């Protein structure tokens, strides 16, 4: 019981912790105070409880695939919020002014949804497993260990990012968020395939021999970039689209900024 509770909690916490640490590190670079962190944590825990307690109703929606659809919807919302955040981050890195209130709001939304999704599962797990009293202590210890490992990896990530030069940490942060966000798209598409809302196909390839999703590296890569050993063509295609979409907007912004700069640098005729 102890080991399985370590693993289940670690898996859920890791994903949210990585995202959280990258956002905290970047928000510090952008000169934001830490009030948004407390808000997102509070609202996230509240969201997780609400979602967890109502999961039996949610499951009944859409002919029994309500869980998949609402989880996919949350992942998609996180994706679009991340895209907006990345654009604001890019805007900031080009020495442009970024208004802080919408920025905090977007980050709160991202973390709130991430904690709601992952936290609800932990809550359901806790209530299921502690249903019989004899597991209580082992589960509690296991969950604490799992959460601590996940949070530690998040803190490690935070310090790795914070100790870089600002430009470099923004660039690496941007790349990480890009990968995480595309991973969200891949997970959302998988859920919609599971619900039969997207067509199911034979897997495009199978790399489970090379790198199993069960391995530690596999789990880390799953949390970081949505690694799947056996994706279908639709899933892989949507993942690629999820990568290309923000990159192309950023490229467009870059083009606009460069042109603006050239225009303003040009000496004006007297």
């Amino acid at each position: 019981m102890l080991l399985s509770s370590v693993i289940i909690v670690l898996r859920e916490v890791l994903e949210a912790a990585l995202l959280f640490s990258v956002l905290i590190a970047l928000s510090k670079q952008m000169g934001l105070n830490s009030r948004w962190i407390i808000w997102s944590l509070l609202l996230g825990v509240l969201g997780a409880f609400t979602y967890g307690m109502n999961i039996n109703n949610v499951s009944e929606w859409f002919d029994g695939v309500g869980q998949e659809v609402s989880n996919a919807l949350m992942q998609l919302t996180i994706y679009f919020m991340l895209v907006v955040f990345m654009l604001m981050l890019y805007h900031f890195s080009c020495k442009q002014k970024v208004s802080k209130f919408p920025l905090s709001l977007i980050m709160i939304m991202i973390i709130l949804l991430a904690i709601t999704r992952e936290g609800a599962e932990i809550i359901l797990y806790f209530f299921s497993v502690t249903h019989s009293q004899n597991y209580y202590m082992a589960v509690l210890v296991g969950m604490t260990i799992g959460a601590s490992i996940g949070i530690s990896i998040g803190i490690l990530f935070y310090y790795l990012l914070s100790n870089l030069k600002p430009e470099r940490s923004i660039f690496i942060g941007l790349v990480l968020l890009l990968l995480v966000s595309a991973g969200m798209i891949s997970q959302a598409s998988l859920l919609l395939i599971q619900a039969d809302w997207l067509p199911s196909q034979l897997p495009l390839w199978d790399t489970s021999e090379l790198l199993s999703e069960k391995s530690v590296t596999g789990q880390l890569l799953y949390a970081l970039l949505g690694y799947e050993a056996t994706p279908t063509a639709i899933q892989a295609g949507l993942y690629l689209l999820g990568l290309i979409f923000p990159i192309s907007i950023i490229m467009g912004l870059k083009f606009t900024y460069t042109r603006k700069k050239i225009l303003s640098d040009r000496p004006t005729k007297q």
Partner: protein
Amino acid sequence: MNAAMINKTSFFILRVTIIIFICQSIVYAATPVIDIEIRNHLFIPSEIVIPENTKVKLVIHNHDETDEEFESYELNREKVIIGQRKGIIFIGPLPAGEYPFFGEFFPKTAQGKVIVK
């Protein structure tokens, strides 16, 4: 338009409708349903056999009071099955092989596999 032509057209429409109905029923028939029960943190049956390259609808009935999470890395599936409720999961099409699944909340006992032939 003469009567014979109208007759011909309506006959054509009827034929198309029948063909559409047949095709649809084939599509529906192509999604077999398999029931799995969860009792005392065990999957019953713990092994199911499904045909190759076919989408299958799994209906998982959880008879326990506790929730369980159906999870499989090989099938790429993950879903919470609430206690004393049922849950639907679509799997496949899959190439032949063995695909283990487990209950993430009670992995010691809740183990099973899908055999694709």
